[in-house]
Structures are given as structure tokens and as C-alpha cells.
């Protein structure tokens, strides 16, 4: 055990975590250059495209250190976005140490802080590393001071590296070997192993990534998951190097995988504890939480007839994503579809994009909603995440909305615009601290429903990309929430309904009417677009009827050109949904979700 080092790499987005992971794999000879795709660990296309790690990967590496000993390094990758805090915390719980990558040109960011706090909570040895040292704008001395000041982590001897250029990789490995403590634990005790990730494989069922703390698990053991209470037979155990290599056992201190014919990842929830059914541990490992979606939206097949296709795809995705919830739902406007729950907006975008990309489906998503706590006049409580399910307002005593604590880190010159943004989003400033002379950390309380639309995008654009954000749910708070309905040709389209704060209803209503006016093509008759709260119309626009739609001249027998024009027109028609007599293009559903402050 003394030659094992279990560690994660933590960083703010874009600070170079995945690139460093790739270089470590390369350096330890685990991946040949030829196999090396850029950022090997991020193996989903989507992740590679966005440069963020969503699904965890892990690797078992051997490294011959300068002290002459051979070490086993278990690199446990972590996802890098606010939506996945819990998953990050469980990955960290599987480690003894964390390599903290800080961009030497940027310094400490909001997620650096958030991740360091998570690592501190797990009592990890945190080893700072300064990346992008080869860039002209790198200022390692200043960043070292910042790390010491802000995080209280001594960084004088931190390796100076460039993951991209392959500089200093060995220093990082030596630093890990020297400073990250070896795992402790009782190899003869009762089995306690932490699930820190799992994914579904078509042939083997769920593959559990696990860290064994006490005891050992062998091929053929009957394992029990202590929180779910379910038992399975271990059909395969092994390590990822980084491809799967079967072993006969995993024991205390080790990191590896277990297959046990488990049908969906929700049954092997991250954070759950594996023990042996015959001789179970008395207590599970601490820190387990049920997956709790924070954001909901409706997902509907763009073509109503593709319901089965969407259902299949959603089921397949859920098998691999314990945090993704869904249930069937019907909309009068959109037909049969699903109400889906996500950890956050990014999680939602990822699922929608995967549906479209991996399954070739075209889907319509409805306005995302948080979960409101609706207290009825009779004292009962309903949790509502679908505007359509809001009870009759006369029966409601009050509505509560979720509030998050948001940490926003920005260069000081943006304090004004960001405060304005937060103000506009109904934020309450708790306090403001100067991290350094030029960097400010704003602590805000914000209603989650103000964060889920485009807060992050707005923050990025107002701070020229320098602002960073981390948030967590803290409580429910009474709020004046109203249901905003949209009527096309005097008929309510339920898919456009949304729950908004009273103070925002007018602007939101205006925005939706304006947007729809631009996007709904003119038709044979005039189409009024109205936004209303209850019976009261608060905004109105009209799509005028078309009077003329002709190709007047047919030139020189060029039929193909005319045909192309008509085909283009027809293509546009195909992407329309019919509501009563009104045709609405699919883009309308996404367009009304984008809320441009500058409009």
C-alpha cells in the first residue's frame, strides 16, 4: 500500500487539467503517442468540443520514481463544472491528494476556490502546480503569492509546468510521490469501497469505478450497495490502465472497477458504499447524497411521431446518468414528451445535445424551470416544476423559490457591471472581498430561476470572459411568482408558459412577444401574439398576414432554380409545429429562452 498514490487533478475550467492528465498518461507510457487523441481522458466528443470534462475517467499508472521505487498512481479525473459539485466531491473522497492546477497567466478563479474547498473538506493533501508557464503573460511569482494568500496553501516549491508543451511533467509526478500520503486502511477488515463514478456498457452492464478503503473485493463475491440495499455478484474486477485490465481482486487502498450485471447507473449511485453481502460493514462511508435535480424542462420530439425514438434515447442516457430524471408528460401544444430533471443548465444542454448528436433526434425543449415550493391555503405543500401544474392561484397561500449562494470572482474593474447584473437578477449582496489588489470575490444570494436562464453567459460577456461563478442551493424563500402565459391567435400555447417573478413578468412577456413576432412567419391570416397573467394581457404583438407569395417570372426554362426556392420554402415548413391554425418554427422554442439584456 505504501507505493500507491491516489490523486485527482483540480482546476478552474481551461486552466489545463485535462491536458496535464494527458501528459501524465503519456509520460508514464500508458498511452502511446499514436493512440493519443487530444485530451484522452475526455472521451465524449461533446466534452472535447467544449473543453470540459463531464464524465469521469480514471487511470491506473505505474511510475518509476527517482528514488528507484515503482509507484502505482491512480489518477482520478473530476468533472469541471458547477453543475457537478457532488460528483467532484465523491471523486475527491476517493483520493489522498489533489494536484491543483492554476493557470499562471490567470491566477485563482471561482472554481479554483470551490474545488480547493471541496478538497479541503476531504482532508486532501493539495499540491499546487503552475501551468502555462511558457506563455509570455505568465506571472508565476504573483500567482504563488495569490495561492498562499487566498487559499492558504504554500506554493513556493510548486512545479512550474506547461502541460501543452510537456514541460515539468516529471516534477509533478515526483511531487505527488513525495508529498501525497499513501492510502491507509485495513486490508483484512470488512469491505468498504466508495463508488465515485459509474457508466453503462452494453455488454457488461454498469461498470463501477471504486476506491477500496477497507477489506477486499474478489471476482465472484456477492456485493451489497449499502445505500440502495441491493446485492449483486461481481462478475469482473480490474483496473483501468487506461483500458480495462482484469485482476482477481481489489483491496484496501486500490482504485479500480467492478462489473456486476447492474442494469442502470442509478442503481450504482455515486457516493454509495460497496460492502460484502455475507459480512457487511456496519456503517457506510460518509457523504452520500441522492441525486437532486435543480432544473426541469419538457423535452418533446420535434416530429410528434418520433416519440418512441426519443423515449428510447432518454432511457439509454438515463442508464448512464444517475442525476438525470424523466417522466412522461403531455402538452396540448407539443403532444407526448417528457418532463426532465437536471443538475443545472449545462447538464440540460448536454443531454439535449447528446439526444440530437448521438441519436440523431430533433427535439423541442420548453422553458427551463426550477422547483417551486407552493404552500396551499390549507397548509399542504406542493413542489411544482412545471408551469402547467401550478394550482389555482386562489388556493395558494404563497410560493417559495430556491435561493442559491453564488460566489463570483472578477477583476475589480467589473465590480460595477456585475453588481448591476446581480441587482437586475434580484440578487442580494452578502459581502465583497478583495482577494488581491485587483481581484474581487462577490458573495451573493440569487434566486436560482434568475441563474438558470443565461446568467453565466451574461456574466462572461459583461466581464469579457474574466468572471467566474460557483453556486450552491441554500434555501427556499417566499417570493411573488406568477404564471406567464403566451397566446397565439387567442389560444394559449402551454409549451411557452413559464413561472417568473412578478417584477420580471412584463419584460419577459414583451421579450417573448417580440421574439415570436420576428420568428413566426406570416401566414394567410393575422396572428395576434399575447402575453398574459391570468386574464390580464400584459404584452401584445401581431404577425401580419401575407398578401403575396409568388415567383412572378420563370426565366429561360430554369425550372431547377425555381424548384430549389420552393424546396427551401418547404424545408422551412417542415420545421414548423402547428398550434391550432398557427404554424410555429421550432427555433421559436429556443429563441424565447434566450434573454438578451441589451434588447
Amino acid at each position, binding site marked *: 500500500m505504501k507505493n500507491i498514490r491516489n490523486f485527482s487533478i483540480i482546476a478552474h475550467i481551461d486552466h489545463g487539467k485535462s491536458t496535464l492528465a494527458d501528459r501524465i498518461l503519456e509520460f508514464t507510457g500508458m498511452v502511446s503517442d499514436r493512440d493519443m487523441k487530444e485530451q484522452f481522458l475526455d472521451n465524449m466528443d461533446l466534452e472535447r468540443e467544449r473543453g470540459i470534462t463531464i464524465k469521469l475517467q480514471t487511470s491506473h499508472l505505474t511510475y518509476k520514481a527517482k528514488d528507484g521505487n515503482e509507484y502505482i498512481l491512480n489518477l482520478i479525473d473530476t468533472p469541471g463544472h458547477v453543475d457537478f459539485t457532488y460528483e467532484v466531491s465523491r471523486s475527491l473522497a476517493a483520493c489522498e491528494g489533489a494536484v491543483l492546477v492554476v493557470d499562471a497567466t490567470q491566477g485563482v478563479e471561482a472554481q479554483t476556490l470551490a474545488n480547493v474547498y471541496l478538497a479541503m473538506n476531504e482532508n486532501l493533501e493539495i499540491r499546487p502546480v503552475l501551468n502555462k508557464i511558457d506563455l509570455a503573460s505568465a506571472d508565476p511569482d504573483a500567482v504563488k503569492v495569490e495561492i498562499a494568500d487566498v487559499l492558504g496553501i504554500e506554493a513556493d516549491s510548486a512545479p512550474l509546468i506547461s502541460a501543452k508543451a510537456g514541460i515539468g511533467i516529471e516534477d509533478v509526478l515526483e511531487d505527488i510521490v513525495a508529498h501525497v500520503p499513501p492510502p491507509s486502511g485495513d486490508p483484512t477488515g470488512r469491505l468498504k469501497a466508495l463508488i465515485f463514478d459509474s457508466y453503462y456498457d452494453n455488454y457488461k452492464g454498469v461498470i463501477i469505478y471504486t476506491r477500496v478503503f477497507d477489506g477486499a473485493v474478489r471476482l465472484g463475491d456477492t456485493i451489497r450497495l449499502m445505500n440502495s440495499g441491493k446485492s449483486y455478484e461481481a462478475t469482473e474486477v480490474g483496473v483501468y490502465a487506461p483500458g480495462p485490465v482484469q485482476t482477481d481482486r481489489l483491496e484496501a487502498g486500490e482504485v479500480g472497477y467492478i462489473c456486476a450485471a447492474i442494469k442502470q447507473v442509478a442503481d450504482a449511485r455515486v457516493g454509495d458504499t460497496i460492502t460484502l453481502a455475507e459480512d457487511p460493514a456496519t456503517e457506510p462511508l460518509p457523504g452520500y447524497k441522492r441525486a437532486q435535480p435543480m432544473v426541469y424542462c419538457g423535452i418533446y420530439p420535434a416530429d410528434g411521431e418520433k416519440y418512441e425514438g426519443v423515449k428510447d434515447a432518454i432511457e439509454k442516457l438515463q442508464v448512464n446518468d444517475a442525476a438525470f430524471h424523466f417522466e412522461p408528460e403531455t402538452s396540448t401544444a407539443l403532444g407526448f414528451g417528457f418532463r426532465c430533471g437536471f443538475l443545472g443548465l449545462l447538464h440540460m444542454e448536454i443531454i439535449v445535445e447528446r439526444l440530437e448528436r448521438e441519436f440523431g433526434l430533433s427535439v423541442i425543449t420548453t422553458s427551463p424551470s426550477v422547483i417551486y415550493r407552493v404552500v396551499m391555503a390549507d397548509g399542504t405543500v406542493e413542489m411544482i416544476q412545471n408551469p402547467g401544474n401550478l394550482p389555482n392561484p386562489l388556493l395558494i397561500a404563497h410560493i417559495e423559490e430556491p435561493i442559491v449562494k453564488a460566489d463570483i470572482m472578477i477583476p475589480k474593474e467589473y465590480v460595477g457591471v456585475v453588481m448591476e447584473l446581480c441587482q437586475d437578477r434580484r440578487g442580494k449582496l452578502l459581502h465583497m472581498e478583495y482577494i488581491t489588489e485587483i481581484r474581487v470575490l462577490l458573495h451573493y444570494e440569487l434566486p436560482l430561476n434568475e441563474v438558470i436562464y443565461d446568467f453565466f453567459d451574461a456574466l462572461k460577456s459583461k466581464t469579457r470572459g474574466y468572471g467566474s461563478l460557483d453556486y450552491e442551493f441554500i434555501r427556499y424563500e417566499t417570493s411573488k411568482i406568477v404564471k406567464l402565459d403566451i397566446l397565439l391567435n387567442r389560444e394559449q400555447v402551454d409549451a411557452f408558459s413559464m413561472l417568473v417573478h412578478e417584477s420580471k413578468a412584463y419584460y419577459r412577456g414583451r421579450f417573448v412577444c417580440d421574439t415570436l413576432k420576428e420568428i413566426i412567419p406570416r401566414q394567410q391570416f393575422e396572428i395576434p401574439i399575447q402575453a398574459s397573467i391570468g386574464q390580464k394581457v400584459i404584452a401584445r404583438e401581431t404577425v401580419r398576414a*401575407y*398578401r*403575396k*407569395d*409568388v415567383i412572378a417570372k420563370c426565366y429561360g426554362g430554369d425550372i431547377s432554380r425555381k*424548384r430549389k426556392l420552393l424546396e427551401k420554402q418547404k424545408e422551412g415548413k417542415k420545421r414548423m409545429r402547428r398550434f391550432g391554425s398557427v404554424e410555429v418554427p421550432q427555433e421559436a422554442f429556443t429563441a424565447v429562452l434566450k434573454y438578451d439584456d441589451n434588447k
Partner: protein
Amino acid sequence: MTITNSAAKTKSLGIYVHIPFCVRKCAYCDFLSFANRDETVHRSYACQLSTELIGRSAVYGNKYSVDTIFIGGGTPSLLSPILIDAILDTIYARFRVEGDAEVTMEVNPGTVDGVEHFTELRNAGVTRLSIGAQSFQASMLRFLGRVHEAADVTRCYALAREAGFENINLDLMFGMPDERLDTWKADLQTAITLNPEHISFYSLQIEEETPLFGEIMNGKYTPLPEIDDRLMYHHAIEALCRAGYVHYEISNAARPGFASRHNLKYWSLDDYLGVGLGAHSYINGRRFANTNIWKDYMGADEHGALTMWSHENSQRDDIAEYVFLGLRKIEGIDLSRFRRQFGRDFWEIYREETHMLMERGLLEHRDGILRLTRLGLDLSNQVFVEYI
């Protein structure tokens, strides 16, 4: 008697000859043409046309008899009548041309100086003129970027009559920005008073990649409101019918018996061969287009690869085109003829779409004839998209 037999077997063919030269490009025009007045260029192009015609005639010459020829552009009247004569000579020499063939040529009123010009064209074999009048309003002609003035139209028309042309079309345009209904009415009245056999009346279309499109985008002009455009269109139909013209296609009206036989081929899925730069053909179930690259066209010999693209129409393609082109004709399409032509029942293919369009008031069906309603004429694209 074998001769008669073989004659009965030959199908009729229209030939379109494209002349891609203009004095200058009009603001609204996105057709294939160049501002070029160099006679040597004209001559070499005419030679190349002959080369192409010879090549094409080897394939089609024996199988078809030509009953319409249409020389369009561009501005064909920019070419010396000698060259027109040479081109027509090639056609007469290489194809079987019927005695009463309709031979149309487009004329720009600003390019003809005397009666001799027309006389020579008549002698060359041209039987029908299509005069690009467009408007009788100086402001509109300027807006359109035309090279002629209003007076040129009447002068040109009179010269054509003097030379003996008995089948003349006037092209008119309406729906220009700032155009008023009363001036359009006056234009129509002027045209009707001239008493041509045929009048085309096109609603101005703003095509991308034209100077006009740019001027609209940058706000120099505001398009005429659709409702005004339609008032002009409806007025034109009424005024022309009142004057004894038959409205026979969306944008065309003619004295009885003077509908453009060549253009009717386009709308009836009949065969036509297009020669010249970028010209389009539909022959024997295949659509194809010549290269639109000058150098390539000029470099081809009679066996040369002129074709830019080619598409073998499926029956489904033919059906769609038959319907959406046929419905451009005011008389509509005859569904029993449809069955004879395709061996399939129209309603089996298009029941749902057609009923929907009838409900929307865009189509009417009577006695086995399907046609656009008055509203359908204004919104014809809405009808056509349902059939492709």
C-alpha cells in the same frame, strides 16, 4: 407513306437561345449576362452557339421537330441582325423546323435605331418580338436602371409594326418602391392603347445578389407594401381582360390565339433545348444546364463537355413539376390528362394536400380541372410547395 409515319412519331421541341450580353446590368436583374458591346465578342459567341447547335442536333435533330424558338437574354437585340440570321440559319439547317414555328426574340427598346433593324430580323426568320418596356414612367425606368426612355418604347413598337411584325409582346413591371397605383394604371392603359398581341406583367422581385437587393438592405429603398403590389396586380388582370386579353398565366395575358407557345412549353412539361451560356434544357425526362463559365463555354467543341449539371427526373419529379408548373396556367391542370400522362390518379398522390389547399381557399376543383383561385394567384408559392 413512311415519311408521314415518321413525322407522326417525332415529338415537338422548343429551342431557347441565350444571349448573355447587355448594354449594362439592370438594378434588379440577376440573370446571366455581361455588359458587353464588343462586336467581335458577339460574333465569336454566335459562332460558338452554332458549334453547340451542331453538336446538339446530332443527338436531337432527327427525333424532334422544332415548333418554337426563343432568343432571350441578356439583350439579344444588342446583336447585329446578321448574327441572329446566322444562328437561325444553323437551326434551320440542322433541325427540322415546322413551317409555322413561333420564333421570338427579346428586344430592348434602347438598342434599336431604325426600321431596317426590324426588317432584317423579320427576314432572318423572327416572327414574334418581346419588347422589354417595363414602364412608361421615367422615374421607374431610372430606378430599374434601364437603358431606354419611355419614348423609346413607343418608337420601338411603331418601328416593329412598320417592319411588319404581327405578334408583339410588351413586358411590363409593377410593384417598384414608391410606385403609385395611378401611374401603374396609366402604364397599363398606354400599353393597351398600343394594342400588342401579348402583355406580360411582372411583379418586381427583389433577388439577392442584385444592386437593388443591397439598396433595400441598406435602407435606400423600402419595398412596396404587399397590399399595394396586389392592388396593382388585380387591377392589371381586370384591365387586360376588359380590353379583350386572355389572362392565361400568372404574369401573362394575350389576345386569343397569341399566348406564347414557347413559354407554354415550360409550364406544360414539354421538351425544350436550351443553347448558350448557362442555358437550361428539359428533354426526354432529363433536366440539364450548360456551364455558366464563359471560358469553358467558349472553349467547347461540338462534342465538348458543356454540361454543368444534369438530372434524370424520376416520375415523382415529373409529377411535381407538372403540377406546380401547370398550376401557373390560369386554365389549371386537367386531372384526366394527368392520369393519361402518368398512369396514376392525382388524388391518390395528393389528396390531403389538395383538400387542405382548397380549404384555405387557394385552389378550386371543377369538372376534373384543378386551378388556382384569385387568392391562390397571390399566394401561389403556398400552393406549389405542397406539391414538391
